[in-house]
């Protein structure tokens, strides 16, 4: 018997429409703020809000492990390094620089293509995707991920870690003048 797993989790569902719209709203507002703020630190803070709301969406999908990793890696790790670099930038100079380049034609084309895709999914979604509820596996989500990563998907997992190792060696080679 696994000590951490409670077999009878009978919570009222948190995955309600209200929470979805709340989190999605935060994400969209945060995303817009990221690209419209002139001050890079404000952009980074908006991005953190977006990432945290995304963690909330993962929780709604009953994937607590992914949500936890999202917080610990993106909001707590990567964004801190972002801020670390951004803080040293001269803000007065970036304020004067042009924020958007004038490629609105390409932008409109890309946005229209994405919009068309969304509309297509919305109208034809019922025939494209199967209807039905995925069995919620909140109680031992982490254990399931662990078993999969170190069992069925061992090889891809190790390949990914090798890729990271190559990246680290590359960074060392670039940073050190003499090795």
């Amino acid at each position, binding site marked *: *018997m*696994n*000590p*951490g*797993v*409670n077999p009878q*989790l*009978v*919570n*009222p569902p948190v995955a309600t429409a209200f929470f979805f719209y709340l989190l999605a709203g935060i994400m969209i507002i945060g995303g817009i703020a990221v690209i419209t703020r002139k*001050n890079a*630190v*404000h952009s980074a*803070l908006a991005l*953190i809000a977006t990432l945290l709301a995304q963690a909330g969406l993962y929780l709604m999908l009953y994937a*607590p*492990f992914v*949500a*936890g*990793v999202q*917080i*610990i890696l993106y*909001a*707590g*790790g990567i*964004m*801190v*390094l972002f*801020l*670390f670099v951004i*803080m*040293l930038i001269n803000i007065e100079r970036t304020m004067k620089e042009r924020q958007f380049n004038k490629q609105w034609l390409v932008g409109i084309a890309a946005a229209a293509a994405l919009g068309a895709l969304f509309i297509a999914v919305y109208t034809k979604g019922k025939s494209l995707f199967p209807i039905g509820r995925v069995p919620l596996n*909140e*109680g*031992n*989500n*982490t*254990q399931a991920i*662990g*078993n999969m990563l170190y069992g069925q998907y061992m090889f891809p997992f190790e390949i990914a870690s090798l890729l990271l190792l190559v990246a680290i060696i590359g960074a060392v080679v670039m940073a050190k003048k003499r090795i």
Partner: protein
Amino acid sequence: MHDLINYIESYLGSDKTPGVAGNIFWATVYILLVFVGLSVAVIAMNWLERKILAHMQVRLGPMRVGPHGLLQPIADAIKLLLKEDIIPAEADKLVFLIAPMIVVLAAFTVFVVVPFGPTHAITDMNIGILFMLGVSSLSVLGIVTAGWASNSHYPLIGALRSSAQMVSYEIAMGLAVVSVIMMTSLNDSGTGTLSMIGIVRAQQAQGVWYIFKFFPLGFIGFVMFAIAMVAETNRAPFDLPEAESELTAGFHTEYSGFRWSLFFLAEYSAMIAVSSIAVTLWLGGWLRPFPNLLHGDTWDLVISLVPGLTFCALGAITFYNVARMPKHPLFRIQTAGLAGFGAVLGLIGLVMFIPIVRNTIQDIFWFSAKVAGSMYLYIWYRGTFPRYRFDQLMKVGWKVLLPIGFALLILTAVVGMRAEVWDQVVIPLWHWLLSIVGLK
């Protein structure tokens, strides 16, 4: 109305935490209790730290406000709340205001999963320890933005130091935690757990606190965590982000009054939070000492009396100090106040002897006692170690703790799976070697 009472009563006698049972009323009660308890603990810690540091340095410490300075934290709080709240003219106002709130929110939110007892936690999460590490790592965002928004040199340097330091020591911390999580997987199902309650249950099932598991591996992990948690909470000897001799006050130089006290509150509750991680992971959480060696009805009774006896002893110490107060008429009120404080302590002790209270309070008492021991460690560090230089700090983090952490991880895995390693690696290798040499 009747439904409401039924709803409230339905949780009583449950063996789950209110969050897992989905009872909103009791969850709210627990949240309020934890909040109040935490605030009291921070106040007590404030007084204790100044007193203990003073006694370590052969001083008296606060003695003026109240008997033995007992009312000093309250006087400080009033002073801080009445102080003028200054926002520097060149500061980034919005970020300057948000930063202390981020720090406080991160420091308080982690207590959602801290297990004070098998049912005495607000909730139990499948990702408990991951949640604690993740949310407590968010507090660095508050520190960094506070330093940047002040638009001044000392805070900026403090913020840079803080972010570099916390990101570095998070890795050492994580490695120590992972070695414990591997230990929890030594059961029939073969998978461990990240749930805080599950980790303590695993220690109970294996009959050993993880600090003593695979000695000295568990102990090394605990020491690594004890070092990393001091760096993670920016406390001496790793308090470079607020090194007052170099940076006046580091990242909170420009803060005053209420906002400064938020940073103070967050620092102390973050200390309590990481201490409770250490207690949960290595020191058996709410488990009482020697549950297997000293079991049986008699021992259960004796050990269940310890909380009451502790508080009675504290009351007795207070009365001893009442007797030692100066006999001058000017000290009459102070003596009476101290006697009242001792009486309250003794009364709490007596209440803890009542069987129903005794059984409910026991696990909370052991958990808090262990956390208090860990908090004493913090004060002790601060009183005895000189501050590190920044390059030394980085060297300890990356060149000492990180390799030790990896070695610990591998050794824990090998020792944990020693039967499998012996059967499937060592013995085939031995036969292969024999066949090469030609003995077989």
